[in-house]
């Protein structure tokens, strides 16, 4: 860890274990509340964190079984960077996760929603993924 002053950054490391995504979500919700986000936005931030953590738990196959979360608090936005040291994925993997499911109503699929929910609820959204793992980043801006 560098000895720099990271005034507005909180870092959290959680094990890939039952309900640990709630710890990450709550940390985000306290930061959102302290930063005066409203209740709906705080819930949206929590859902985005939960979905991204669960994806790392379910899909990353990481050996260290840990998820690393950075929360960066700015005047009117909250950024989260969620990293695993797993196998990574491509847009094709993501597409397959949607295509390969059976369902009764073609427009009501059961899985393959995590990334889409996160993308829809947040204002900015990025994926960096490779053989050293995945970092999903998103930014929520305060409603004006």
């Amino acid at each position, binding site marked *: 860890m560098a000895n720099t002053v990271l005034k507005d950054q909180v870092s959290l490391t959680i094990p890939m274990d039952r309900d640990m995504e709630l710890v990450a979500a*709550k940390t985000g919700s306290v930061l959102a509340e302290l930063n005066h986000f409203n209740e709906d936005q705080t*819930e949206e931030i929590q*859902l985005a964190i939960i979905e991204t953590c*669960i994806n790392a738990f379910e899909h990353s196959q990481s050996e260290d079984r840990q998820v690393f979360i950075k929360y960066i608090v700015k005047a009117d936005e909250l950024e989260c960077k969620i990293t695993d040291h797993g196998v990574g994925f491509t847009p094709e993997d993501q597409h397959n996760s949607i295509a390969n499911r059976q369902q009764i109503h073609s427009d*009501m699929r*059961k*899985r393959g929603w995590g990334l*889409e929910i996160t993308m829809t609820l947040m204002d900015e959204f990025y994926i960096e993924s490779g053989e050293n793992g995945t970092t999903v980043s998103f930014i929520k801006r305060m409603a004006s």
Partner: protein
Amino acid sequence: MANKFDIQVRAENKYAVLETAGYLNDALGEDLSKKAQELIQKGYTQLVINLEQTALINSIGISILIEIIEALDERDGTLNFCGLSATQERTFRMMAIAKYAGIFPDEKTAIANF
């Protein structure tokens, strides 16, 4: 708060209400599914799921809700939700759940609209 495993079932004559409390994840979702299947086995085809005491739902929890909708569909039944937060309702609409299940502000309205 989070993850208090808790499902209340109130079975009336024509319908039944399932009320959850706490984080709706795979575990609580499967518990809910089991209770809904039991009601469906008993012949109930009109179910209300009241999510007022559930602040957080993950997408695995929602996928289990979709299975309940599908099980009711096979018997021409209906599922009505109530007690959703604005964000939950938004997510349900995004996932097309709102097309195959009802979404109502409170239990009374959910029951009145079967």
